[in-house]
């Protein structure tokens, strides 16, 4: 991974990546304050504030239509905010937009690659558009194809690629100029589980060492795995922020849920399970819920304890907190999907 340490610093082929801030110091690479954006009567962002320290991964978590993509589009200089400010790598996203574009990389759910060009040609084109000399653009393209496991597909048009390969090529394109700040807009939405896992591994490996990453996602497990800190947004407002553990604590963490053969045994079940949990189990909606700290061995222990107490089990399962759990805990309502995606609303307003 020796080569990875160059991300975020000026590499030999990137003469002008002076970042305006020093990675690893107390400076924040992304500072968003009171950001507002409306499309007609739809308020996509209603005064959103958050920040990300240099070299960390910030997860922006929320359902479709929460305003995640709008926030990324503003930070990527693609859209002007109605109110509020945002500074990235020390530059204002509106006033310094042109200079900022040399310091950001954007990859996301669209896998924005030219399907008629080969993988190599796509990366070479992006390098040339960053004004790298042709020879440097080619060297960089080959380097990235190797790192992203695309060497064998390098000479094939991107339309022959699988969904996962396209995302990797898209991410490689975002990293051509070694940007100090990287935006990943729902990088695994629409991928199958294998593709998602492989993308996670790629993101973990490629974003190490100095790059500040803003990741948007609808999946708690994705934010959990990749993000240092998580900002939860809903209907254009920040409703919670913290580390993954802090958020999970707010929704109760993992728990064992038991349906009883006879609900008259509920009190006995609570006592039996209470000895192995850090919090007293509850009985609600015909289900006994026992919060647990770890997963290993607890299921077998729970079954043994209930059996020993003579409690008949109809159904028993381990439940992890989901995004819905977070939303129910934070807002009191489920994270319902918006009927229209935010971009469509934008288009209606345009």
């Amino acid at each position, binding site marked *: 991974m020796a080569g990875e340490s160059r991300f975020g610093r000026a590499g030999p082929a990137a003469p002008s990546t002076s970042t305006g801030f020093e990675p690893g110091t107390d400076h924040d690479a992304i500072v968003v304050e009171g950001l507002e954006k409306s499309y007609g009567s739809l308020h996509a962002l209603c005064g959103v504030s958050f920040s990300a320290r240099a070299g960390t991964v910030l997860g922006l978590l929320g359902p479709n239509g929460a305003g995640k993509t709008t926030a990324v589009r503003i930070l990527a200089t693609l859209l002007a905010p109605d109110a509020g400010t945002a500074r990235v790598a020390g530059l204002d996203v509106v006033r310094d937009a042109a200079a900022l*574009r040399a310091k950001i990389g954007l990859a996301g*759910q669209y896998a924005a*690659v030219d399907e008629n060009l080969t993988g190599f040609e796509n990366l070479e084109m992006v390098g040339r*558009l*960053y004004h790298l000399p042709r020879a440097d653009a080619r060297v960089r393209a080959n380097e990235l194809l190797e790192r992203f496991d695309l060497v064998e597909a390098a000479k094939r048009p991107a339309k022959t690629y699988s969904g996962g390969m396209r995302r990797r090529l898209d991410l490689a394109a975002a990293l051509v100029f070694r940007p100090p700040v990287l935006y990943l807009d729902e990088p695994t939405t629409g991928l199958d589980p294998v593709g998602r896992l492989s993308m996670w591994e790629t993101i973990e490996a490629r974003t190490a060492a100095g790059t500040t990453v803003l990741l948007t996602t609808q999946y708690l497990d994705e934010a959990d795995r990749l993000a240092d800190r998580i900002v939860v947004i809903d209907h254009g407002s920040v409703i919670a922020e913290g580390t993954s553990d802090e958020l999970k604590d707010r929704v109760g963490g993992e728990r064992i849920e038991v349906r009883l053969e006879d609900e008259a045994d509920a009190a006995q079940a609570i006592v039996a399970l209470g000895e192995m949990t850090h919090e007293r189990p509850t009985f609600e909606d015909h289900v006994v819920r026992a919060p647990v700290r770890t997963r290993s061995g607890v299921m077998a222990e729970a079954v043994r304890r209930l059996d020993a107490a003579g409690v008949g089990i109809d159904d028993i399962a381990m439940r992890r907190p989901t995004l819905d759990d977070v939303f129910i805990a934070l807002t009191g309502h489920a994270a319902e999907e918006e009927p229209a995606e935010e971009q469509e609303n934008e*288009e209606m307003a345009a």
Partner: protein
Amino acid sequence: MSSLAMSASDTLVLARRNLARIPRQPDLLIAYTIQPVMFVLLFVYVFGGAIQTPGFDYVDFLMPGIIVQSIAFGGFVTALGLAEDVKKGLIDRFRSLPMSRAAVLLGRTISDVALNCLSLVVLFAVGFLAGFNFIDASVVEIVAGIALCLFLGYAFSWIFALIGLFSSSPETANAIGFTLIFPLTFASSVFVPVESMPDGLRQFAEVNPFTTISDAVRSLWLGTPAHTDVWMAFVWCTALTVIFAPLAVARYRTVAAK
């Protein structure tokens, strides 16, 4: 790099990208060349016998018009390509790069010129086979006519760029192009002399830029009276470019993926 050199470099990189796709999409190339050939054959052999063009063989009258129409529509690939790029998120990528704001559209419109040169070769070949001849035309006049056609194609590329950037999909771009602009070419002297049209339509056809430009090319290639058509034709092409290029660039700066 100066900003002008930067724009030029970006434009060439993107023009190359647009041309690289042509041999990889042979169906596009075929559609591009077969369609004008079909028009020539249809009009010469199906409608030609029924259309009166006093003083000319119909094929001589028709070819300048068909060439004007085909080249004007050559930029249609720009509408389709841009609608596709917007839909696929490529425009978002380009707009997030530190590159010239006009380069994506300049690259498109310039590669259209190259494609239109290819179309011209096909059109002239099929035209000569169908019996077309230049009448009293000097080399300068022939070249001026070709230049005028290519200039018209360039101006229309910007119109199609704007359509592409306003379309939510290539299918929409297709529908807009064929319902708004295609009929304009028929209400003109492209296929028939405007004198044969009823009142109302005739007056419209007389001020239609397709009439001005078709008649200008005819005066250069067939020795018909020039009047002010040649100058007016260049004025039209310049005006269309000057109006639509900034509109398209302005739209590019705010366009969003669907």
